[in-house]
């Protein structure tokens, strides 16, 4: 059984924000109104953290793209009262929007603040509704949503692979962010496959995970010589 | 009590100050080799072909002059050296006083070690100089003196020089009997001859070599062997023989040995007249003595503090090192423990000084030997004033 994981090379990442945009377009993530945005209710499945270090003028800036970390031991699924968030055998942590009751316990429990909530009904201009990605269901008000590692793409890839009776190739299943990263800083693949790029990079001495000591075992691994 | 303590303090201070005037003779100048390698000098400067090619080879039979002359050479090429350091991404070494001293001794000492001799020339020389008339080499030659082939121990030039010195009186006698001309030889010739003998000798396995001389020990020998009774060095000693300070003895060991050889007939005669015992050398003594003689040239002549002040002003030192300039006020710095510190401190502060000069569009102040001497005298005077 594959174990899907993401490696983000922070040395290569410039922080251009394309992953954020790609994700929003691919996953039909709603754009909240400006007033809502002002109240910290924007929805980015892929967010960007900025860290400033040092004293002027010797400032170092690190920008860290932050998707859902798809922990192997996810604190969010432990607390969900209705099985609305789950981890599947391939390690993807999913969210079932039509089952979620909106208690936001998973958001409170997530140490990475990776989840977002539909505070209002998502709205689009009629024209924009035309170009929604049909592979991804639209969310409704009052439910929690988050990065799915573009799980719908996995389905397509699986179908293709099944049809051709072959295993999934390394790099065949790519979330939107990894696919379009201009810096080629995001890698995606199967951690169980020792040949995969992701496996090799995860063994790099530069590899680290956010808040590793919490024991959540995130499957998003960062590479950086800094830190 | 307090009075005594202050007295002791002042005594110590005076001792240290006077000590700063003179450099102690090294007991093993080759210690500097370690510094030379560890600090990475060897990566650019080769010694006789061993080492980097970026900078000049230090052992190509060059003479680097007295201490302050060496200091001036090093000082003047600091900017260029720094540039190379940056270009080659090397770390610029800094030195402690001890390291700097070792290094300087080492560089100075290099010439003493001499150059390898030429075998063919040696063979020719043996004939030319007439040695072959008495000594036998590879079965040819006279029978009067010992066969060189049995004397493998002469393979080292210095050992040979020592042996020659030691058998000088007896040889001189024999030669007078046979009415032979005393052969004058040069240092290179000793090298060549010993190289030839080494090759021709049957006993190549008994390859006896001498260790490079210990100048400090040499100084003791100079007194012990009685040289001081005739020769003076730096005003010390009798003036019967030549003043050794006035001779140019900054030559390789064999050159000095050759000079000794050449003047030995006159000396032997004089000694006979005055009934002085002819000094014999054994072991490493000859090497040590010659090393001492070699190091006589290391001392500088004293400079003129007044001219030094002029150098201090002309070269622009005054703009930074006085009246609250960027650099430290030199009249307030810690006095030198030893003379080497002038070079050590100048070396170590050079990059900062280089940067500041560059930033302010100033040139690097180059100092000639005389300027260096005078400057040194001036610095000592202002530092001692305190």
């Amino acid at each position, binding site marked *: 059984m594959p174990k899907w994981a993401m490696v983000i090379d922070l040395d290569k990442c410039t922080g251009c924000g394309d992953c954020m945009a790609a994700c929003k377009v691919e996953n039909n993530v709603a754009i909240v109104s400006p007033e*809502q945005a002002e*109240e*910290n*209710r*924007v929805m980015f499945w892929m*967010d960007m*953290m*900025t*860290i400033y270090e040092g004293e002027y003028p010797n400032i170092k800036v690190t920008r*860290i793209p*932050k998707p859902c970390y798809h922990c192997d031991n996810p*604190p969010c699924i*432990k*607390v*969900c*009262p*209705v*099985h*609305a968030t789950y981890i599947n055998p391939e390690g993807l942590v999913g969210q079932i929007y039509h*089952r*979620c*009751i*909106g*208690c*936001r*316990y998973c*958001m*409170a*429990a997530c*140490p*990475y*603040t990776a989840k*977002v*909530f*539909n*505070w*209002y*009904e998502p709205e689009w201009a009629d024209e924009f509704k035309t170009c929604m990605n049909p592979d991804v269901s639209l969310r*409704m*008000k*009052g*439910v*929690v949503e988050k990065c799915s590692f573009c799980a719908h793409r996995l389905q397509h890839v699986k179908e293709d692979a099944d049809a051709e009776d072959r295993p999934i190739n390394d790099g065949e299943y790519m979330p939107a962010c990894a696919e379009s990263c201009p810096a080629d800083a995001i890698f995606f693949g199967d951690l169980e496959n020792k040949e995969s790029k992701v496996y090799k990079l995860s063994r790099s001495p530069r590899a680290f995970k*956010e*808040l590793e000591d*919490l024991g*959540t075992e995130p499957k998003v691994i960062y590479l950086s010589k800094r830190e | 009590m307090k009075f005594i303590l202050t007295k002791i303090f002042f005594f110590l201070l005076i001792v240290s100050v006077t000590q700063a005037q003179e450099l102690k003779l090294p007991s093993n100048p080759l210690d500097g080799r370690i510094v030379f390698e560890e600090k990475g000098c060897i990566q650019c400067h080769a010694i006789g072909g061993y080492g980097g090619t970026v900078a000049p080879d230090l052992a190509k039979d060059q003479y680097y002059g007295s201490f302050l002359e060496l200091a001036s050479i090093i000082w003047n090429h600091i900017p260029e050296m720094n540039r190379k350091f940056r270009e080659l991404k090397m770390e610029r070494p800094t030195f402690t006083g001890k390291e700097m001293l070792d290094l300087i001794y080492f560089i100075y000492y290099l010439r003493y070690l001499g150059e390898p001799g030429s075998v063919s020339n040696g063979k020719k020389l043996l004939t030319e100089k007439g040695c072959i008339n008495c000594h036998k080499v590879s079965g040819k030659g006279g029978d009067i003196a010992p066969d060189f082939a049995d004397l493998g121990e002469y393979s080292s030039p210095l050992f040979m020089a020592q042996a020659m010195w030691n058998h000088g009186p007896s040889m001189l006698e024999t030669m007078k009997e046979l009415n032979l001309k005393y052969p004058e030889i040069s240092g290179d010739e000793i090298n060549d001859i010993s190289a030839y003998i080494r090759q021709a000798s049957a006993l190549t396995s008994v390859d006896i070599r001498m260790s490079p001389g210990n100048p400090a020990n040499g100084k003791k020998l100079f007194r012990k062997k009685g040289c001081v009774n005739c020769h003076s060095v730096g005003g010390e000693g009798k003036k019967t023989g030549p003043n050794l300070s006035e001779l140019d003895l900054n030559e390789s060991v064999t050159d000095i040995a050759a000079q000794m050889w050449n003047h030995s007939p006159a000396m032997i005669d004089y000694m006979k007249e005055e009934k002085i015992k002819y000094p014999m050398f054994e072991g490493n003594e000859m090497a040590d003595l010659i090393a001492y003689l070699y190091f006589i040239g290391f001392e500088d002549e004293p400079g003129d503090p007044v001219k030094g002040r002029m150098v201090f002003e002309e070269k622009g030192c005054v703009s930074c090192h006085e009246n609250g300039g960027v650099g430290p006020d030199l009249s307030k710095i810690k006095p030198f423990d030893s003379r080497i510190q002038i070079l050590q401190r100048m070396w170590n502060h050079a990059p900062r000084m280089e940067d500041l000069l560059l930033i302010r569009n100033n040139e690097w102040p180059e100092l000639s030997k005389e300027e260096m001497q005078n400057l040194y005298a001036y610095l000592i005077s202002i530092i001692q004033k305190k």
Partner: protein
Amino acid sequence: MEEKKKTTVDIDEALYRPIYETGKGFYITVGVLLMIILFAAFMYIRQVYYGLGVTGMNQPVTWGFYIVNFVFFIGISHAGTLISAILRLSKAEWRRPITRMAEVITAIVLAIGGLHPIIDLGRPDRVLNIFTAGRLQSPLLWDVTSITAYFTASTVYLYLPMIPDIAKLRDRGGKLRWFYDFLSWGWQGTEHQKKVLNRAINILMVMVIPIAVSVHTVISYIFSMTLQPGWHSTIFGPYFVVGAIFSGIAALLIVMIAFRKFFHLENYLKLIHFRYLSTLLLIMSLLWFYFTFSEYLTGIFGAEPHEMDVILYKMTGPYAIFFWGMVICNFIIPVIVLSFKKFKTIKGILFASITVVIGMWLERLNIVIPSLANPRLELSTGMYFPSLTEWSLFIGALAVFVLGYVLFSKFFPIISIWEIEEGREESIKEVEERVKSYLPGPAGTTE
């Protein structure tokens, strides 16, 4: 049979009066409360219609007033059952006039508190999902279970001791006879019935104390089961229980003083009751301080960076005013007021109790929000400003509580009449015997 009852009742006529006499004040109070509640209901319906966006919650601060109030109300609920059960169990005779009041607080406030998580839901229409697809592993469902159990137990515990009084009301006749008839469960006051009732109450007393303690522990689990700094703490269980009892006593005192004033119960609720209870309050205040101190001491001593972020946010950051307000309200004021006899008047006690209730609410606020507002990762700290919706639902909840109390006192005596009677008739003798039994007997007797 009826006549016999009537004669004995007259002494405690003051306790029946509120049930049979309805003044203008009652209607005005109920009217005002209903309006508040209606407005709150309107705001809630609006929230359901538009979504949780109408509240002030936002992305890092995903929980706000609703969860704060949930914890707060459940905490208040400890007033009752726990206190009355402990007092009953320890046969403290002075308990007789106050147990019912305490129990009523529990029942009403528990119902209100229990509703708060549902108010907080983004999709209340899907609340039944917890029945079809619930996860008992989630601390939230532990809450559901334990609150249901506690609510059931405390309602039963309120109801059983009320049966004799309901029978009295039934026997007095008048309005709603069928209602009292139904509720009195055929109580005739026979010895057997008394025995059965006492036995049942005794079993309940024993049961209800662990349930009450566990409920608040479980509430604390909502927080301490997560990994969040400021929440992930083992001390939270007892800390919450202590806080709950603390706020419960304060709430009880407020209610007692209110009823004493409005129902003129000075004869029943004497200064001695307040003295005893306020001493208990003082002890709880000290205990609370001890727990708070330990909680923050461990945090500060360990100085884990994320933990420190939260602590600094509370102590020196935007929440400093709430944090230090909490310390003043919960510790400094009650200790000063309750330690000196001079201040320990009814007014003083009322003041201290009100500050304690406010302080405990601030404590809940201090627990819930700063931890959420300080994400561990390098994101900006959040801030939370409750909207009108949250304020009106908060006030609505308080109004429901007052209304519930007013209505209860309209239908049932607020002081347990039969227990007072029992006290008068039997206790003096019983206590004398009991006290004798505590004391060492004549030499040589062994038992």
